[in-house]
C-alpha cells in the first residue's frame, strides 16, 4: 500500500518528462519494428538478424559524418543549420543504403537458399540468429570491440514546454525529440502509401496474402521478398541515424536489446501490420518509461517484456492484430 503510494509520488512529478522520453524512444522502436513486421507479413519469418541491419546503419552514418569532417571529440563546434541538414541527409542516405543492402544480403545468403530447398521454419529461425551473431561479431572485430563516439550534431533545444499543471512538473520538448517522432510517423506513412498505392506494394500484399495466387498473377516472389527486406532496411537506416543523434556512443552489441525491443513492439502492435509497428513502438516506449519511473530505472526492460506477456495473454494478435495483406480490409 505504502510502497505503491510512495512510488506514485515519485512518478507523478516526472510524468510529463517520462511521456516525452517514452514517445521518443518508442519512435525508434517503431522504425525498427517496421522491418520486422514487413518481413513477417510476407514470409512469416522473424528476421532476428534485423537488429544487426540497424547496427550497421549506425556505423555507416558515423563513418560518413567522419568523412565530411565531423567526428566525435574532434573539437568541432555544433554545426550550423545548413551543415546539419547536409550531415543528416548524408548520414540517413548512407545508413539506409548500408542497412538496406545488408538486409538484402542477409536474405540472399541466409534465407533464399533455404527457401529453395523448402527448409522447415525452425531452420530459418536458427539461421536468423546465426546471421545476427555473425554480423554483430564482425562489427566487433572491425571496431576492436571498442565503443565509438558519436559527434554532437544537434544540440537539443527546448522548442516548447508541456505544462499539465497539478503536481506534474512542466516537461520541455526538444527539437530532437520532435524530429525523431515526426520521422517515424513520416516513414510509416511513406511505407504505408507505397504498400497501398504502388504496383510493387500491391505485389507485396499479394504475396503476403496468398503467394501461390500471386505467382499465378505474374508476381515474381523472389523480387518481392528482396524488396520487402530492402524497405525494412531503409527504415532501420533512418532509425540508426536518429539513434545516433540521441546517443553519445555506440558499440557492436547495441543491436541485440534494441532489436528485441523493436520485435516486441511489432508483436505488441500486431505483427505483420505496419500501423501496428508504429503503435506498438510508441506504446512500448511510453509504457516502459512510465514503468521505469514507477519501479526505478533498472526495471525498464523487465517492464517492457512483462507488458508484452500481459498484452499477448489477452490479445494474442497484438493491439491492432491483422496482417500486412489484410491491413486495408
Amino acid at each position, binding site marked *: 500500500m505504502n510502497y505503491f503510494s510512495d512510488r506514485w509520488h515519485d512518478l507523478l512529478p516526472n510524468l510529463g518528462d517520462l511521456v516525452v522520453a517514452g514517445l521518443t524512444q518508442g519512435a525508434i522502436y517503431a522504425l525498427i519494428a517496421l522491418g520486422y513486421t514487413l518481413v513477417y507479413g510476407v514470409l512469416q519469418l522473424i528476421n532476428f538478424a534485423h537488429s544487426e541491419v540497424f547496427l550497421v546503419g549506425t556505423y555507416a552514418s558515423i563513418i560518413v559524418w567522419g568523412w565530411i569532417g565531423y567526428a566525435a571529440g574532434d573539437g568541432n563546434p555544433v554545426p550550423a543549420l545548413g551543415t546539419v541538414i547536409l550531415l543528416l541527409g548524408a548520414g540517413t542516405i548512407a545508413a539506409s543504403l548500408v542497412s538496406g543492402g545488408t538486409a538484402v544480403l542477409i536474405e540472399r545468403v541466409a534465407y533464399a537458399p533455404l527457401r529453395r530447398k523448402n527448409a522447415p521454419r525452425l531452420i530459418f529461425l536458427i539461421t536468423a540468429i546465426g546471421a545476427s551473431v555473425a554480423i554483430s561479431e564482425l562489427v566487433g572485430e572491425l571496431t576492436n570491440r571498442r565503443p565509438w563516439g558519436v559527434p554532437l550534431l544537434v544540440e537539443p533545444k527546448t522548442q516548447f514546454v508541456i505544462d499539465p499543471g497539478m503536481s506534474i512538473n512542466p516537461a520541455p520538448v526538444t527539437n530532437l525529440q520532435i524530429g525523431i517522432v515526426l520521422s517515424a510517423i513520416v516513414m510509416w506513412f511513406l511505407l504505408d502509401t507505397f504498400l497501398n498505392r504502388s*504496383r510493387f506494394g500491391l505485389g507485396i500484399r499479394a504475396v503476403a496474402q*496468398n503467394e*501461390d495466387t500471386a505467382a*499465378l498473377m505474374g*508476381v515474381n516472389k523472389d523480387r518481392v521478398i528482396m524488396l520487402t527486406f530492402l524497405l525494412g532496411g531503409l527504415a532501420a537506416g533512418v532509425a540508426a541515424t536518429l539513434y545516433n543523434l540521441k546517443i553519445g556512443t555506440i558499440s557492436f552489441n547495441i543491436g541485440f536489446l534494441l532489436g528485441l525491443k523493436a520485435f516486441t513492439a511489432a508483436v505488441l502492435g500486431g505483427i505483420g501490420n505496419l500501423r501496428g509497428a508504429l503503435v506498438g513502438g510508441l506504446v512500448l516506449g511510453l509504457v516502459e518509461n512510465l514503468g521505469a519511473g514507477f519501479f526505478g530505472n533498472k526495471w525498464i526492460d523487465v517492464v517492457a517484456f512483462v507488458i508484452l506477456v500481459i498484452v499477448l495473454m489477452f490479445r494474442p494478435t497484438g493491439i491492432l492484430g491483422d496482417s500486412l495483406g489484410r491491413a486495408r480490409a
Partner: protein
Amino acid sequence: MLLEIENLDVHYGRIQALHGISLSVGEGEIVALIGANGAGKSTTMRAISGLRRPSTGRITFGGEDITKMRPDRRVVAGICQAPEGRGIFSGMTVQENLFMGAYTRKRGAQLNADLDHVYMLFPRLKERRRQPGGTLSGGEQQMLAIGRALMSRPKLLLLDEPSMGLAPMLIAQIFQIILEIRDQGTTILLVEQNAQQALSRADRAYVMETGSITREGTGADLLVDPAVRDAYLGVA
C-alpha cells in the same frame, strides 16, 4: 497446337502425382480435363502455370519450351489461371484484385478498357468494386477469379473447377460466360468435376484417373461413352 504437354511426370516428395501425361490444346478450343478428386487435374494445372516443376517431360506453349520457365514469365507469355478455390486476395478490394491480374502489364488506356470489359462481362463486380474481395459470395468470387485472369490478356485461360460450390443456375451462367470468352478469342483449358457441364461445352476432353490420362475425345463422344457415363455422369 497452342499448348502441348508431353510425358509429364510430377512428384510431391516421393509420391508421384502425374504419370507421363500428354495432352494438347489447340488455339480457340475449349478443352476439358475431367476426373475424380485426386486424379491429378489440379497438379496438371499447377505444372502448366509453373507452380510445380515436373521431374520429367516437356511443356511447350506457342512452340516455345516453357518447362523451366518461371511462373511470372509464363503470365507474360500468355498463360493465366483462375485457380481451384478461386484464390481471391480477400483483403484487397475487388478492383485491386482485378489489377493484380494485370500485374505484369503497363497501366494505361488499354488496361482501363480491359477493366471496363471485365465489368461488362460481370456487372456485379462493378457494383462491388470497392468492397474487399473476401466479402463476396462464392459465385461473385468465381467471377472475380475469372475476370482477374482475363485482365492479364491471356492467350490461354486455365480454369480450375469454376463450378465448385455453386448453385446450378450460377453454374450455367458461368459456363455461358466461358463460352463467350472463348468466342472473343481466348483458348480455354478447363478442369471440372461437373463432367456433364464440362463435356457438353468442351470441344475436346481428357479423362484423368490416378495421375494418368485414360481417355480422350470430343466432348460429345465422351458424353455418350459408356465408361465415362458410368464413372462420371452418374448414369448406370
